[in-house]
């Protein structure tokens, strides 16, 4: 089942095309990594998928079962969050906001969902800790739990390992892999870490202001663009 289909998609900033002619689709259960050098349109494409930026041309078709506001998102961390006084539970719970509709307050249902997702990510013991006191890896787990609260099907991650040390990075990738394989959540991730990408991703989308490659990871390794890009990192 195809969750997201992008057709002839292009984006521009102030009249200058950043990325164009993107065609790919994300199927239920996929682990898609978007790779490419800096400034080649990866984050812009992510913003487009999340409806934070309107496409200049083309369209993004969502599966009927996937409402636009039910895509979980793990954004890059902001400066505001660095000293934000909030408990882990409060942050995770805020992911349930799109379930509320017009209700002003969370009910038992949302609180249960938040607890479930904290359990899944092994941060139950941090429930009452202050978000600003956590380590980088713990923060990402909290934000991942929040993203899980917002979705049943798909999570979009924007360089989740940025600024983490290698051990924590591996743990995080393991965790994301787990979410994908164990809970069947579709993953769309922007990543710089080509080794981890090749290890876990089922599909690769390579951007360089346009689409250089889209297909399975095996195909990518056979392709010329894939061999070049991967080779450059070894």
């Amino acid at each position, binding site marked *: 089942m195809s969750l997201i289909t992008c057709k002839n998609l292009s984006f521009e900033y102030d009249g200058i095309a950043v990325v164009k002619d993107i065609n790919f689709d994300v199927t239920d259960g996929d682990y898609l990594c978007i790779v490419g050098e800096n400034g080649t349109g990866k984050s812009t494409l992510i913003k487009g998928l999340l409806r934070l930026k309107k496409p200049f041309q083309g369209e993004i078709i969502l599966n009927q079962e996937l409402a636009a506001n039910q895509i979980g998102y793990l954004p890059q961390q902001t400066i505001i969050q660095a000293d934000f*006084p909030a408990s882990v539970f409060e942050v995770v719970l805020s992911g349930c906001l799109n379930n509320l509709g017009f209700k002003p307050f969370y009910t038992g249902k949302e609180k249960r969902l938040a607890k479930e997702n904290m359990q899944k990510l092994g941060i139950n013991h941090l429930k009452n800790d202050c978000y600003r006191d956590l380590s980088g890896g713990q923060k990402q787990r909290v934000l991942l739990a929040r993203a899980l609260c917002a979705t049943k099907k798909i999570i979009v991650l924007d360089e989740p390992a940025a600024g983490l040390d290698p051990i924590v990075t591996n743990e995080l990738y393991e965790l994301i892999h787990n979410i994908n394989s164990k809970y069947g959540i579709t993953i769309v991730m922007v990543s710089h870490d080509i080794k981890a990408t090749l290890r876990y991703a089922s599909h690769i989308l390579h951007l360089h202001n346009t689409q250089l490659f889209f297909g399975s990871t095996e195909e990518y390794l056979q392709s010329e663009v894939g061999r070049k890009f991967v080779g450059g990192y070894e």
Partner: protein
Amino acid sequence: MINILREMFSYPFMARAVLVGTLVALCASLLGVSLVLKRYAMIGDGLSHVGFGALAVAAVLNASPMLVSIPIVVISAFLLLRLSENSKIKGDAAISLISTGALAIGVMVISMSSGMNTDVNNYLFGSILSMSQSDVNLSIGLSIVVILLFILFYNRIFAVTFDETFAKATGTNVQIFNMIIALLTALVIVVGMRMIGALLITSLIVFPALTSMRLAKRFITVTVNSAIISVICLWIGLIISYKYSTPAGASIVICNIVAFIIYSIIEKIKERVIKE
């Protein structure tokens, strides 16, 4: 102590000041948490200067000060929000532009009509004597609206404050809630300005939130503590103001400074204890 309180409340203007002051302190501190965390504290400062300009114009036109300043300040709030979000003149510069501009217009308007020196002083530094009964009624009404809206939208305000991008991506109308926060801030500033003064009203927004953040670790406790600190400082400030005939606004702000220092010291001690 009891005697002083009894004496204070025997004056109707003092009772009014305590009532309106408590409500304003409550509203300002609730919104303050979000404004400080969103790095919007300076918007409050800009708005209070705009409020001063509006009050001056109202005084010259002989119009009701509140009815003139509320729409002007609300419009400026939306303008400042837009400016700080997407404009070539960035946040802080835009705010200084608008606030000093409004201040200059206010001073100009006042100087063109003669004999208003005490009034200028009142607007800048506040006066509890300046509240008429209709002002009081309006203030109470507005404060209740602010508190109700804040409670109703609490969860959304938290989400928008903590992570605008995520909130937007998961379908929360961030723009609307930023506007609600700006609108509520504008109302609080207009209501509080008469009593605390245009130059000092921002402190009611900033101080309690920052003080409370020294120690509290959850958003809800930060918010509740901020409200409690704010109201207590206001009461102590008003008592000092009454007992020693000091200006109410300044007395309240001094109390807030003291509270901030006490909380900061406790925070440092706590950190040291945890380290050892």
